[in-house]
């Protein structure tokens, strides 16, 4: 994509908080709602004499994610110390990985405006999070609950070319880690954080421009806006004969602009070296094989299967696969009733409407996919009309009862018996002689009026197709 004759070159580092119960190097808990410094210990505080011990789950989640991102998994990876001084980092160094990360050379395929796009994943490495500081003017307060929470930093290649693509990439990463259930993907709570590297260059030029890093953007919409702002800012500088300075900037969503945080001259010299406290992480082929078997079908593959094997429209397929639970729910429904499109319609409109109204999530839906499947079956078997099904559905949502029970209880079964319907039709025609006269005189639009009257008399239970057929026959005479 071109921005005023310039190309944008964008790379994204995503910090994914792994959903473990305990921290990466200590058994402190990881819950977000803990009280101040509740989840700390001498290890988290970096007390002298303490030793970190690696959490097995962190390796499993990292390898799982790496495999899902088509990375090669390093059989022997090494933790390194990244040295810098900041009060939220009590040891004076962050334990991270440097030249031997656990995952490398992968790729992620996702959709941008209906087109498939593939972006390479340079690497993904394990590290510990830092604590949280809050600034109060003449002092700063430190909470170390977050210090030591496991992160997987996923680094994309510098191949993203637009703000939209960057946001879609972020969403796709979130989808992958949520499908794998290794991260809750909650951006507001900081479970997923993105740093974006951006530079611009004249179209067709090979040499890269000076890059600027924008840190800690906490929504996909802001990623898009921050990048758009930053691209414009850099082009403005170049067009007016100035230079882009290599620096770290922050995005302010209220003002919709980025501002300088620190210049390259103050850039940290991290003096990485292998952490002597932690053994290299050696993993076997068996370990990888076992995890490979655990990987569920990924969202894009699943959407493509819904399109090709279920005959769903693209739109349906992508909506249904946004969350793994939603796709599971749809598939379970379709399995019961055998009607893919109908299942998709019910899930996308009725189920999702109720969830939105009740601010709920699919795993808490009071209507099971089995029950919804049965309801769709009852429509397909002409036991109830589509219209009645809607009220049965809201009853199911309220009471959690099966559709069968509700239909029987409320006597909502569809009337498909021709003689019963004929009798109702006769009554309706007898009650409305003037409309019958007008219809026969050519006002054929009145058919809608007759259908409505018959449906009303039958309390919505008459089979609409049959009503139409019988009405037309009778009115011909």
């Amino acid at each position, binding site marked *: 994509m071109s921005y005023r004759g310039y190309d944008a070159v964008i790379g994204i580092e995503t910090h994914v908080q792994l959903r473990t119960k305990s921290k990466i190097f200590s*058994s402190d808990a990881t819950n977000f709602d803990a009280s101040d410094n509740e989840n700390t*210990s001498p290890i988290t505080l970096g007390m002298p004499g303490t030793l970190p011990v690696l959490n*097995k789950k962190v390796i499993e989640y990292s390898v799982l994610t790496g495999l899902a991102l088509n990375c090669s998994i390093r059989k022997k990876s090494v933790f390194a110390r990244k*040295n810098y001084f900041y009060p939220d980092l009590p040891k004076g160094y962050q334990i991270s990985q440097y030249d031997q990360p656990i995952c490398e050379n992968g790729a992620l395929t996702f959709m941008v405006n209906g087109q498939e796009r593939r972006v390479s994943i340079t690497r993904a490495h394990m590290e510990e999070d830092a604590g949280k*500081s809050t600034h109060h003017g003449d002092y700063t307060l*430190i909470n170390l609950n977050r210090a030591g929470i496991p992160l997987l930093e996923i680094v994309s290649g510098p191949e993203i070319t637009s703000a939209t693509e960057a946001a879609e990439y972020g969403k796709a990463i979130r989808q992958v880690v949520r499908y794998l259930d290794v991260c809750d993907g909650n951006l507001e709570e900081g479970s997923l954080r993105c740093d974006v590297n951006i530079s611009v260059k004249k179209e067709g030029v090979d040499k890269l421009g000076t890059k600027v890093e924008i840190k800690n953007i906490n929504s996909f919409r802001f990623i898009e806006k921050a990048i758009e702002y930053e691209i414009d800012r850099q082009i403005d500088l170049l067009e007016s004969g100035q230079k882009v300075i290599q620096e770290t900037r922050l995005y302010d969503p209220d003002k919709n602009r980025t501002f300088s945080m620190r210049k390259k001259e103050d850039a940290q010299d991290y003096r990485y070296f292998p952490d002597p406290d932690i053994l290299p992480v050696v993993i076997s082929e068996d370990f990888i094989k076992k995890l490979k078997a655990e990987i569920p079908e990924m969202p894009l593959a699943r959407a493509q299967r819904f399109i090709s094997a279920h005959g769903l429209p693209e739109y349906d397929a992508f909506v249904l696969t946004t969350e793994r639970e939603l796709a599971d729910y749809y598939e379970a429904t379709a399995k019961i009733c055998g009607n893919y499109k109908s299942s998709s319609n019910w899930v996308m409109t009725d189920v999702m409407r109720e969830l939105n109204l009740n601010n709920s999530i699919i795993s808490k839906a009071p209507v099971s996919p089995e029950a919804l499947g049965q309801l769709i079956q009852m429509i397909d078997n002409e036991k109830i009309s589509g219209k009645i099904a809607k009220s049965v559905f809201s009853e199911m949502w309220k009471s959690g009862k099966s559709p069968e029970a509700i239909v029987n209880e409320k006597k909502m079964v569809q009337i498909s018996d021709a003689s019963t319907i004929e009798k109702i039709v006769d009554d309706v025609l007898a009650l409305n002689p003037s409309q019958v006269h007008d219809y026969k005189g050519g006002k054929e639009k009145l058919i809608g009026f007759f259908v409505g009257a018959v449906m009303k008399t039958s309390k919505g239970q008459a089979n609409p197709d049959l009503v139409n057929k019988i009405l037309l026959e009778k009115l011909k005479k």
Partner: protein
Amino acid sequence: MSDIKVDFKAVQHIAKLSRLAINEQQAQEYTNQLNQILGLFDKISNLSTEGIEPLVTPTEIEIFWREDIAENNYSSEEMVANAPSQQGSLFKVPPVV
């Protein structure tokens, strides 16, 4: 001792990164001391290490992982007790920004 490993400017840079306030006289003293220490490594550098993989750890053990089990063995009061300054259960430090 061969060439200078760390000059006066590098020492000042490291001090800044380490948030240490040192004066010029100290910086000069540390420069001399650090160069002496680093000079010792020259002896090691003279050894031939061709074909030898860099050593991360001298131990033979390859795996030592813990299961993902959370424990709560310390109270926040205990954890902040040794801090020079605190507010509630939070560490209180000089202003950062």
